[in-house]
């Protein structure tokens, strides 16, 4: 009910559910983590791993099983948590589906200095971000000239020019295999 930090699961504070019901939902969701469908079986996981950490440089911002960057969501389970269609959308056009805790923001200091990062928390008096150097910063709004809530994700669009359809299939297969391993370990 409080969400899961570092994952795509937000808090469900408005949910009309007792703790027992929440656990029942969790148990049900775990039954949904199954083998890949025929469509999901496309691609080659080993090639996908190479693309993920190499050409596509996904690991600069994303963590997988303890390795990689912190600026974007941890992708260790994403391959089993999202449909193939959703993942393709999120990779091809990431600005259409940004996740809470990773909204891009630019802080403009009173002297005009600009700091870019992702918003971790905020309230009427302060804002907390991770900047592009992965530093966690807390700034009082009274020290800022402006807080620019960006509409474009820090992640670039991975169109076919950056990632061919075949490479995308490989990356998805890699994430699926990693996700299945993570889900099994979590049971």
């Amino acid at each position, binding site marked *: *009910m409080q969400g899961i930090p570092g994952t795509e699961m937000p808090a469900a*504070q*408005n949910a*009309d559910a*007792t*703790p027992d019901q929440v656990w029942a939902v969790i148990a049900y969701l775990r039954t949904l983590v199954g083998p890949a469908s025929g469509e999901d079986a496309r691609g080659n996981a080993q090639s996908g791993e190479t693309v993920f950490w190499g050409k596509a440089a996904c690991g600069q911002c994303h963590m997988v099983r303890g390795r990689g960057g912190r600026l974007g969501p941890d992708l260790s389970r994403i391959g089993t948590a999202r449909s193939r269609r959703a993942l393709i959308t999120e990779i091809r056009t990431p600005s*259409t*589906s*940004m996740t809470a805790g990773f909204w891009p923001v630019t802080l403009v200091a009173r002297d005009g200095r600009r700091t870019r990062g992702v918003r971790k*928390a*905020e*309230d*009427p*008096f302060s804002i907390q971000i991770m900047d592009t150097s992965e530093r966690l910063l807390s700034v009082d709004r009274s020290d800022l000239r402006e807080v620019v809530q960006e*509409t474009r994700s820090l992640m670039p669009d991975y169109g076919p020019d950056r990632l061919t359809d075949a490479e995308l299939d490989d990356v998805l297969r890699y994430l699926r295999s990693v996700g299945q391993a993570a889900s099994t370990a979590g049971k």
Partner: protein
Amino acid sequence: MTRALIRRSIVGVFLALVIGGALLSGVAAQQAQNAGGWTTYAGSDSGQRHSPLTQITPANVGRLAVQWMFQTGVAGRLEATPLVVDGIMYLTGPDNHAWALDARTGRQLWHYRRQLPERLNICCGRVNRGFAMRGDRLYMTTLDAHLVALDSRTGNVLWDVEIDDYARGYTATVAPLIVKDKLIVGIAGAEYGVRGFIDAFDIETGKRAWRFWTVPEPGKAGSNTWEGDAWRRGGGSTWVTGAFDPTLNLVYWGTGNPAPDSFGDARPGDNLYTDSVVALDVDTGTLRWHYQFTPHDVHDWDAVQSPILADLTINGAPRKVLMTANRNGFFYTLDRTDGTLLRARPFVRTTWAQEVGRDGRPILLEANRIGPEGTITCPDVGGGTNWMSPSFNPATGLFYVTARETCARFYAFPQQFLEGHMYWGGAVENIPGEPGYGALRAIDPVTGLVRWEFKYPKPSFGGTLTTASGLVFAGEEDGNVMAFDGATGKHLWHLQTGASLRAAPMTFTVNGRQFVVVASGGTVVALALPDARNP
């Protein structure tokens, strides 16, 4: 109860009884005794949430500090306003837990928990909004649609009566309102297609005195605004506490959305008395007048928001008014003697109605129409405001409300009615990338104009409180309880409590020390000036 607590209580009673050299009795004694307390949901019958206490001021509020916290230890959030009488705090919580606390220290005196049925039809949270109290009795409504009376010294149940059948979708979260010899309560369940009502019960016996149906049966006044048998499942919940004017002998209560919420074709007509405020004779439950804010609502814009009563001067003439900031995004000032509309103006962005016409009806825009293809409308389903309590300070003449600037995509489609099941007839979708924002807004009820605002990053559900020292206290979604200068909106103080505030702050005095208390998540936080020591 500790010996010290008993001693203070006895001394307090003695002082109250001899105030002014005369022996006071009955209600007068109780009022004198509880001059520094908080004895009803909204602090007074007028619903103003305005305290006469002045120890905490704009000059010293910056030194406000936490004195104690009480963690309920139960799942779910607090939406209640606690009561404080004779130094004891009475609090209700999720799943009809309830507590009595030493208001000076936060220590628990007793804990009550109701055994609830396993399957309840609750649309919007297993919450409760507070007790009503008279003498040594506390009164609470329950999620299984009962009204219970508790012994304030032990938490033991004195009597327990059914309001209506929970299996049909009825539930109750409202704090009762005590008026004369009656307990006035409302009901929830419009999302399950119940037929709404307001009930009055005898305060001694729990016997029902009258019931006012918010959806009239055929042949009764207002029934011509329904077709067929849609009235049987027409909604019109009454889930937030109303107000009372003793000089007019009228109780004012807001009513909720018609059912089904979105598919209006299932219920052609204006659907009286949904989304209205009704003025009822408290002795008989007879309707004196009504004003409908959203005829034939399709956006779930309940009009249950706490009405606030005040006497204002408008165009040079004194007027007895009722003020309300509505979920539909408009702020209204009505003459509470007869329901005449005096002012209506949007206090948030509204795209469904151009304005409210001279005849009191909204002039609709295209965005009011919804269907299976979806329509973006502002405000969203949560509304321009919601159950979070507004407040009014007679000295500043301003109405303080938590405003929500939000829009959503609304869908409508047919749905078969099944008793005891959700009956929405539609869906609501957030707009990606447009989370909206919130604000504390101060509205001049004479002009309807926003005098000042303080913005919040997120749409919030925290209530407000005003004091005679000129302060406004408010809570917001990211966890801050805040104090402002009520005249200017200047931010004076805040504390990050660590959980969203879904209740209104309240204030009271114990042993000469003023406390401000607010519920944050599942914790009660009590604040006071560090140097305002007990005498």
